[in-house]
């Protein structure tokens, strides 16, 4: 009897922490859309190069400060830079790299969005572009916990064209090493989100799935922060998920907006990491969820999975949020923050 009591109190001590956050890549505030399109232009050659001039840099600085303020005001538990400069979305870290030539405009997954095809023509050595953004963010974030965001190595390699390494396996490994080098230069951060939609959208074949996990492991090993790997636009194929669990990461993300059954299946069949990231708010729809509905969806996931004690559960939108009009994006952040608070209260 004593024993049971003791275990109960232990359980109370290891209560789940609910962390409201986002996968980053925010929409620009509307004034910044106008100002930056005037400053930069509308054509392929006008997109960010990594060495923007003073005026453009100043506009991005101001916009960054604004979106950090929006996150703080909403009460999110992690503050992201917002990746406002990422004209080429997840392809950004390569698009601004010196060894990469940006070519034709290509479709960004199955969306009505486009990015410049980054063609890798030389060694992917250290860039430092993203680290610079994070330094600026760290200064503005104050005491708030900083979250870094990067494309996962598999997605980044998938979005790019290789003309240098000449071998898919070697290229994927090189992209992993490159990202690890970038992470190494980051200022202190609490969490690192690695976005991996290609793991769903262009699922790796046998053998490649293992190497994708190895590349993810390489990136994750470069930081002491908690690493969340967030695939989206559906569920991972089960083998891909199984391999992903072998990587040294803290959480896998689940896009419960796009697919419930297959995600639940993976959790039931293969278990999960100690932490979990739940994509429960729709990053691609203006319909703003009720915080209570988000909390109910957390309960729904708990009902379905065998494990119900996670160290940390991240509550996020399923995808990046740049698809949304700015005002709706702001509303979604507030909902996530409130949902995390509700979940804490309920769990206690």
């Amino acid at each position, binding site marked *: 009897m004593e024993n049971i009591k003791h275990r109960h109190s232990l359980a109370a001590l290891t209560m789940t922490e609910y962390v409201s956050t986002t996968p980053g890549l925010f929409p620009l505030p509307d004034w910044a859309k106008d100002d930056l399109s005037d400053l930069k232009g509308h054509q392929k050659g006008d997109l960010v190069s990594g060495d923007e001039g003073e005026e453009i840099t100043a506009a991005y600085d101001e916009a960054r400060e604004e979106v950090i303020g929006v996150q703080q005001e909403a009460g999110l538990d992690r503050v992201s830079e917002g990746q406002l400069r990422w004209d080429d979305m997840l392809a950004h870290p390569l698009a601004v790299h010196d060894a990469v030539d940006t070519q034709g405009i290509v479709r960004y997954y199955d969306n009505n969005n486009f990015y410049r095809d980054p063609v890798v023509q030389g060694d992917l050595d250290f860039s430092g572009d993203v680290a610079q953004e994070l330094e600026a963010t760290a200064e503005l974030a104050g005491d708030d916990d900083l979250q870094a965001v990067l494309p996962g190595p598999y997605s980044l390699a998938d979005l790019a064209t290789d003309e240098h390494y000449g071998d898919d396996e070697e290229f994927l490994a090189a992209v992993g090493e490159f990202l690890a080098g970038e992470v190494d230069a980051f200022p202190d951060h609490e969490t690192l989100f690695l976005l991996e939609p290609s793991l769903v959208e262009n699922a790796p074949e046998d053998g490649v799935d293992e190497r994708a996990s190895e590349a993810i492991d390489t990136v994750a090993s470069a930081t002491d922060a908690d690493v969340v790997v967030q695939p989206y636009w559906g569920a991972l194929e089960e083998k891909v998920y199984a391999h992903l669990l072998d990587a040294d990461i803290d959480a896998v993300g689940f896009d419960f907006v796009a697919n419930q059954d297959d995600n639940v299946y993976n959790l039931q069949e293969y278990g999960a990491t100690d932490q979990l990231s739940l994509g429960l708010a729709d990053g691609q729809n203006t319909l703003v969820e009720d915080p209570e509905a988000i909390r109910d969806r957390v309960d729904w996931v708990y009902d379905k999975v065998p494990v119900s004690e996670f160290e940390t559960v991240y509550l996020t939108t399923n995808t990046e949020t740049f698809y949304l*009009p700015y005002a*709706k994006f702001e509303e979604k952040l507030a909902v996530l923050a409130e949902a995390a608070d509700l979940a804490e209260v309920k769990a206690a």
Partner: protein
Amino acid sequence: MSNENKDQFRPENHENDHFLLTTVVGSYPKPKWLNRAKELYQDPDHSFDDDDYQEALDDASRLITNEHERAGLDVVVDGEMRRNEMVEFFAHRIEGYEFNGPVKVWGHNYFDKPSVVSEVKYTDSWLVDEYEFVAEASDRPVKVPITGPYTLANWSFNEAYDDDDELTLALADLVNEEIEKLVDAGARYIQIDEPALATTPDDHAIVGEALEHIVADIPEEVRIGLHVCYGDYSRIYPEILEFPVDEFDLELANGDYDQLDVFKDPEFTADLALGVTDVHVGEVESVEQIEENIKKGLEVVPPEQLVVSPDCGVKLLPREVAYGKMANMVEAARNVEAALDAGEIDVERGEPAPADD
């Protein structure tokens, strides 16, 4: 072999026995002064009012319609002078839509992607005024391009319907209602634009179902075209042949006809409106080049089923380049017709040569 539906657009004084109908997809560069007029109209401190702006739109519509006539096109459009964007324009006219601000397409190119927040409803006509004005301004047949329900649904946020298919079919009924009104007003050539099909080719079934709604009770003689562009056609062919349309308007010049073989097997049973000039190249192709492109179409369909048009809307080109492409396209079509009359064209049609077996 004759093709009644297509031949209703044959000009009385057509110079050749063969007839390769020449037309455009729809959009055309706006005259610079029209953009200036819009700025004045939107400037609250300026006296340029609604009447002034309507007059400017009328002038532009007449001007571009006449420019299409001057280029020699058999079927004309007014270059969509009154339309801003292919989804926004319609969403503003359909009850159930609301706008929440611009979203990114790429770089700093944005559009006011609308949200469907309640049941979509038809109120006032969308295009009848535009059609009647152009028909009045021209002696030639007029084509009416209209954004299809799949694209209207897919390029909106859906807050109100259980899924996008349901929204697509609801919008299809509204498009049907509009086409009925256009037909009552005299329109005989309607083109449904479905560029979104190229982004999600697996959805051809719902597009087909939507088209059944669209053409319900529309008289047989009304020509219905479907425009699809910039995608992998092998993923929608031959399934699209089941669609209840007379004509498929396809972008093929951009890829230098690398997808042409897709349409050779099985046999292309509808009319083919072949893209013969690339709208993303700033140089005007020569008449000879366009003649060669037109002959590519003859590898897929006989002359009776061939229509000639640019790959897509030409609105992003400089206006003189757009005009040059139209004029050269018409000249090339007439040359190919004459060569066909003279029996000088020998193009083998049908299945691509098998590889090894």
